[in-house]
């Protein structure tokens, strides 16, 4: 069975990029949201295996959205995305208990390796 993926990013570029990357793979996009608020709704209703979450978004940003998701489900598997990826932001993401911050634009090999590492935590 495919692993379900929720994409939370206000950019259609990122959504289509990921959709193309996962086509024919063991991952399936089950939902997409353009804001943190919408992402939280889908997170609660879809219970996806993996969440890809952009940091800079209108409304609730990705960091705040991740914080709420982690409070509601400490085992949630989140890959943070950002065009900005400096050492301070990496520290901030790590302090929240998250392990992955991918720079934009996403590279397919890196995305799949990240998914595998996150899912490998279950084994």
């Amino acid at each position, binding site marked *: 069975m495919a692993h379900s993926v929720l994409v939370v990013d*206000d*950019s*259609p*570029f*990122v959504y*289509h*990029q990921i959709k*193309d990357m996962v086509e024919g793979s063991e991952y399936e996009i089950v939902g997409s949201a353009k804001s943190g608020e919408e992402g939280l709704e889908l997170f609660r209703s879809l219970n996806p295996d993996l969440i890809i979450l952009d940091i*800079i*978004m*209108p409304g609730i940003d990705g960091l705040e959205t991740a914080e709420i998701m982690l409070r509601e489900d400490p085992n949630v598997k989140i890959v943070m995305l*950002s*065009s*900005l*990826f*400096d*050492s*301070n*932001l990496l520290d901030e993401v790590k302090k929240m208990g998250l392990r992955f911050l991918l*720079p*934009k*634009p996403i590279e397919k090999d890196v995305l799949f390796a990240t998914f595998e590492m996150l899912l490998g935590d279950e084994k």
Partner: protein
Amino acid sequence: MNVPHVFASSIALAAKKVVGFSMAECNRQLVISNAEVITIQSKGSFASTMEFRLELSLVEAILKGMKARQLEDPGMRESYLAEFVNIISGHALTAINNATEEISRLTVPRVGKENAYEKQGLSDKFDTCFTSEYGKMEVLIEYSLNAVVYELT
């Protein structure tokens, strides 16, 4: 730290990753009259307003390079251009933040608006430009760098 140099090299590198073609820095100022304008700000140690002015032929090439879809929806075109600017300015700000060890963060880009932001308190500015086989892009940056930068000798 040479802020214009950091910006120029980061923007050129990131642009190629996003759209798949090279953009080389120009040696002289351009005046792009019929341009698409996208503005973004950074807040924090490196406070800035960055205005990207793109020739329309370059806009079309960028959209093609990003494999843009559903362009019949007017909001979609803006979303792709906003993401292009978000990524290239994000790479530049990452380089600045890592060099200064300070924190600056980006706002959400605004498309189609000149002077979209207040520029109060920004002390320095520079213009840079890029050319490609598809057209030109001019970048106007007003900024204040409130960090001590130690240059290695």
